[in-house]
C-alpha cells in the first residue's frame, strides 16, 4: 500500500512484484536477457551517477542537483522505449531518461555544474534541455508534436514531469490541445508522491493522475513506476499508438522520491522517515536484480563487475568534466542572438575591457 495512493486505487500495470517475482507474463519482446540486463545496467549507472553527483555537491564541486533516487525505472523505461528520431522534453528529474537518450555523463555534469555547454548535446541534437520552470515543457511538447504532425513525420514527442506539475495550467492547456488534435505526444508523469513538501492529496482531487487525461479526451494509464519492464511496455505501447496517428497517452508512473527534492532541500522537515523506509522495500533496482538472479542466472560476479564498470565510467566522466575550464566570460554574449546586435557589442566590449585590466 502506497501512502500517497490517493483514493486507494492501486490498479496499475506491473510485471514484477517488490521481490522481483513475476506477477504477469512478460511480453515476448521483453523476455529477453540482453534487454533486461541493458535496462538493469542503465538503472545501476543512474543510481551510481546520482550518488556521485550528490557527493560532488556536498564537497562544493557541483551545484544544486535534483536526485532521481528510487525513480530510475521511469527514465530508463521510457528512454529505452523511444526511438532515436523521437524527441524528449525532460523535466529536471530525468538523469536516467537523458542517459538513455545519449546525453553524456559529462554533459549532465556540466549542466548541473553551472555551464550552458551541458545542454549542447552531441547525441540527441533535437531533444530539449531540462525544463526548470515547472510545467512549461508540456506546451513545448505539443508544439513539437504539431510540427511532426504538420510534416507527416512518424515521430513522437515524449514529455516528462512530476506529480506537482499536473497542478499547472500549462499541463491542462497542453492536454487539451493534444487530445483535440490527436497529436503524437506521450505525457509521462513521475508520481513520486511529493511536490517538494506538499503531498499529492493536497495537490489533486482526482483519484489518480491518469484520470487527468479524461480532460484531454485520450487514454490515461497507470503503471508501476518502479517496474522498469512495465514502464518500458506501457510507454512503448503509447509510442506505437502515437506513431500510428492514434493520438496521445498520459502515463502515470507511480514511484516514490527516496531522496530530498534537491540537494538544497531537507525532506526531514516535512516527511515521516518511516514512510521513506517503507518505500525502500519497493526499490526498482533490487526488484529487477532479484528477477535476473532467479530467472536469468545473474551472478554475484556479474553484479560486481557491473558496479566496477559503472564506477569507472563515472570517474572518467568526472575527470573529463573537471578538466573543462569555464567558458570565456564573453560567451554569455555569444549565443544570445544569432548575430550580436550592435546595441550589445558595446556591452560585450566593456566586459572584454574589464577582463584585460
Amino acid at each position, binding site marked *: 500500500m502506497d501512502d500517497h495512493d490517493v483514493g486507494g486505487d492501486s490498479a496499475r500495470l506491473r510485471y514484477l512484484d517488490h521481490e522481483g517475482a513475476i506477477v504477469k507474463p512478460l511480453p515476448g519482446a521483453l523476455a529477453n536477457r540482453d534487454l533486461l540486463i541493458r535496462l538493469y545496467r542503465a538503472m545501476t549507472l543512474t543510481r551510481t551517477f546520482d550518488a556521485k553527483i550528490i557527493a560532488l555537491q556536498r564537497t562544493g564541486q557541483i551545484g544544486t542537483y535534483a536526485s532521481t533516487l528510487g525513480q530510475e525505472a521511469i527514465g530508463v523505461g521510457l528512454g529505452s522505449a523511444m526511438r532515436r528520431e523521437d524527441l524528449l522534453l525532460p523535466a529536471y528529474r530525468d538523469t536516467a531518461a537523458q542517459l538513455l537518450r545519449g546525453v553524456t555523463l559529462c554533459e549532465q555534469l556540466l549542466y548541473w555544474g553551472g555551464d550552458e555547454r551541458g545542454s549542447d548535446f552531441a547525441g540527441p541534437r533535437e531533444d530539449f534541455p531540462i525544463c526548470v520552470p515547472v510545467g512549461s515543457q508540456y506546451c513545448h511538447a*505539443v508544439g*513539437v508534436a504539431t510540427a511532426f504532425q504538420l510534416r507527416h513525420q512518424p515521430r513522437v514527442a515524449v514529455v516528462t514531469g512530476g506529480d506537482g506539475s499536473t497542478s499547472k495550467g500549462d499541463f491542462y492547456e497542453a492536454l487539451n490541445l493534444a487530445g483535440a488534435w490527436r497529436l503524437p505526444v506521450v505525457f509521462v508523469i513521475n508520481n513520486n508522491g511529493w511536490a517538494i513538501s506538499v503531498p499529492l492529496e493536497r495537490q489533486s482531487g482526482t483519484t489518480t493522475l491518469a484520470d487527468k487525461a479524461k480532460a484531454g479526451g485520450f487514454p490515461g494509464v497507470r503503471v508501476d513506476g518502479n517496474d522498469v519492464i512495465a514502464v518500458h511496455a506501457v510507454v512503448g505501447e503509447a509510442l506505437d499508438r502515437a506513431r500510428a496517428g492514434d493520438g496521445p497517452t498520459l502515463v502515470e508512473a507511480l514511484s516514490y522520491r527516496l531522496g530530498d527534492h534537491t540537494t538544497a532541500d531537507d525532506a526531514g522537515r516535512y516527511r515521516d522517515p518511516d514512510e521513506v523506509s517503507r518505500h525502500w522495500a519497493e526499490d526498482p533496482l533490487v526488484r529487477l536484480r532479484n528477477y535476473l538472479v532467479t530467472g536469468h542466472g545473474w551472478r554475484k560476479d556479474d553484479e560486481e563487475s557491473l558496479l566496477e564498470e559503472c564506477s569507472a565510467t563515472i570517474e572518467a566522466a568526472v575527470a573529463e568534466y573537471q578538466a573543462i575550464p569555464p567558458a570565456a566570460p564573453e560567451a554569455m554574449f555569444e549565443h544570445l542572438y544569432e548575430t550580436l546586435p550592435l546595441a550589445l557589442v558595446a556591452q560585450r566590449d566593456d566586459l572584454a575591457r574589464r577582463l584585460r585590466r
Partner: protein
Amino acid sequence: MSEMTLVEAVNLALARALADDPEVVIFGEDVGVNGGVFRATDGLQARFGAERVFDTPLAETLIAGMAVGMAAQGLRPVAEIQFMGFIYSTIDHLLNHAARLRNRTRGRLSCPLVLRAPYGGGIHAPEHHSESTEALFAHIPGLRVVIPSSPARAYGLLLAAIRDPDPVVFLEPKRIYRAVREEVDDDGTALPLDHVFTVRDGSDVTLLGWGAMLQVALTAANQLAEEGIEAEVLDVATLKPFDTATLLESVARTGRCVIVHEAAQTGGFGAEIAALLAEHGLLTLLAPVRRVTGYDTVMPLYRLEDHYLPSTAAVVAAIRETLEYA
C-alpha cells in the same frame, strides 16, 4: 504598388511570408476562417490551407508555448495574441524559453518565432484592450520588440521579423490599423530591424515616438513647422535592440529631445532613451529631455482614454518648453 491601411499591409506581409517560405505557419485565436478579429489574417486560410493557417484553442499560454516547440523544430511560427491585454500569460514562455533557448543550448536549438498582438488605446475598446506595455518585453534579453507605425513599415518590418532567426514580439498599433493609408510595394523587401527610422528631417528638436504616437508626433511637428520650428521625427520601430547611434547623431545636431509614448511613464521605454542620452549625449543637450507619456495610472475605460493618451497639444507644449532653453 497600391495604397492600403496598416492592417492590410500586415495581411500582405503574412501572405508574402507564407508564399515565400514553406516553414511559415500562422495560428492563434480566430485567425483561420474568421481571418482574425481585426482581419489581419483575412483570406489566408482559404489561400494557403488549414495546415498553414489554423485556429488554436483559446489558450494564450499554450499558443506561446507551442510556438516555442514548433520554432525549435525549424518551423517559422507566427502566432497571434488577440489583444495585448491577454499576452501576459505568455511571458513565461517568452522570457524563460523563447528568448534563452539559443543561449542555453549554445546555439544547438533556436526559436525563430513571431508573436503578434494589437496594442494601445484610442479605439474605445473594452477593459483590458487598450494598454501599452511594450517596456515589459523590452526588458527581456534575447527578444526583439518591434512596433510599426505606418503601412509600409508594417509590411517591411513584419517580413523582417518573420525572417529573423530569433524571437520577435511584434506589436501592432490598432488605433492606426485603418486610420492611415500609404503606398506599399509588395516586392518582398524587408526593412532592417534594430534601426531607428528618420521620418522627418529637422534641426530644432529631436522627437521620438513609435506606434500610434508617431502620427501624434508628426502632427505636432507639422503644426510647429508653420511657425518655423523644425522637429526631426524619429520612428523608433525596434525598441529592442535599440539603435542608439541614430538617436545620438540626431540629438547632437538638435540639442533637444522629446520622447512620446502612450505607455505609463515610470519604467517606460522613454526612460531608457533618456538614460542613454544622459550617459552618451549629455554634453550635446541644450535643454532637459522631456517625456510626454501616459500617466502612471491604470489605463481608464474609454470615456476618459483621450485624457490619458498623449495629445498633439501636449507634444507641442513639451517642444516649446525645451526651446525655452537658449
